[in-house]
């Protein structure tokens, strides 16, 4: 894969647009996922992912072959999404007001779909509360298993900054998770309690 990717990259740098199509094919899922987790909206994520590939294609000659291509590509996506979030901060609609946009679920059955959807909602709420750069760091850490160094490179931060951002993000998310749990438990109880009581 790495070898083929290197060949594609060289071909793209020599002006072969078709070779970049292979790259789009190979990286569409990770790029889209990052954009989706960052922007919490399928339509915006699609636009952001398309824009990421466009920017990558336009600046492919600046790509340094000593770096990993995926890190470079995700770095473009993360920066673009951070900019979008900052731009839209004034007009952003709260997630609670948005219709539920689900990720295709491979597991059949209404119960699993429901629990998946609830899980997605919880995850979105957790991520939404983080600031854009912390959110990008969390996504890269948990979904892509990036090291601190890779996250630092992608987000143009120092390694220590990444560590402290992740520490802060985990703390913030855990606090939210606990408050969500506390809200959920009485609601669950109410649902199953007899009206007599």
């Amino acid at each position: 894969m790495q070898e083929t990717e290197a060949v594609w990259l060289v071909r793209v740098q020599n002006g072969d647009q078709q070779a970049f199509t292979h790259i789009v094919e190979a990286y569409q899922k990770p790029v889209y996922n990052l954009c989706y987790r960052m922007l919490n909206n399928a339509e915006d994520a699609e636009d952001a992912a398309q824009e990421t590939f466009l920017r990558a294609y336009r600046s492919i000659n600046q790509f340094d072959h000593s770096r990993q291509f995926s890190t470079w590509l995700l770095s473009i996506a993360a920066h673009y999404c951070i900019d979008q979030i900052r731009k839209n901060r004034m007009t952003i609609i709260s997630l609670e007001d948005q219709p539920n946009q689900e990720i295709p679920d491979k597991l059949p059955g209404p119960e699993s779909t429901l629990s998946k959807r609830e899980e997605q909602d919880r995850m979105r709420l957790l991520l939404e509360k983080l600031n854009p750069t912390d959110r990008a760091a969390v996504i890269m850490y948990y979904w892509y298993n990036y090291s601190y160094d890779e996250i630092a490179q992608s987000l143009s931060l120092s390694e220590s900054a990444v560590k402290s951002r992740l520490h802060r993000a985990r703390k913030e998310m855990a606090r939210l998770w606990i408050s969500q749990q506390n809200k959920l438990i009485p609601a669950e109880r109410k649902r199953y309690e007899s009206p007599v009581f």
Partner: protein
Amino acid sequence: MNHQFFETLLLSDTKPTDDEAVILQEHLVTCDTCRQLSNALSDMEVMFHNSALASPRPGFTQRWEEKLALDTEKRQRRQVVAIAIISACSIAALLLLLGFALWPIFISPISVLWAKLINFVSWFSAVEAALDVVSTLLRVTYSVVPASLWIALSVAFLGLCAIWVVAIKQVISPRRLAL
């Protein structure tokens, strides 16, 4: 009780040492706050790690190719517009400068041509007067200086020329240049 130490341990990405792990476990049995934090962190990690990558709608690559084609077209159009604007601005600036230069002719062409003619005639008479002065000076000098002095001056001049030519030859000789 100070939770800070345990909180840092729980939130840290590095694995605690055996001693730290023992102390932490003992603390978690007695402390509700830290136990809640620990449970929340582990639940969250499980949820994140189990969460699949979101996929775009089918046909993403095709849509990207369409977008690239549109973007390329837009860029080309923008370039053409930019070149047209720059050319128009340059032409406008040239016309403006030309207009400033030719403005008097447009206002009164006859008076401008008349002024140019007078200018030319005055230049011509000035050159004629200068030539008169130079020829008079030459004639006076020739009559004042004796013939023997003229010969001496000519010989001296020719000698200096010969020395100059020899010196130049010496300087540019290939042997000297090779050194």
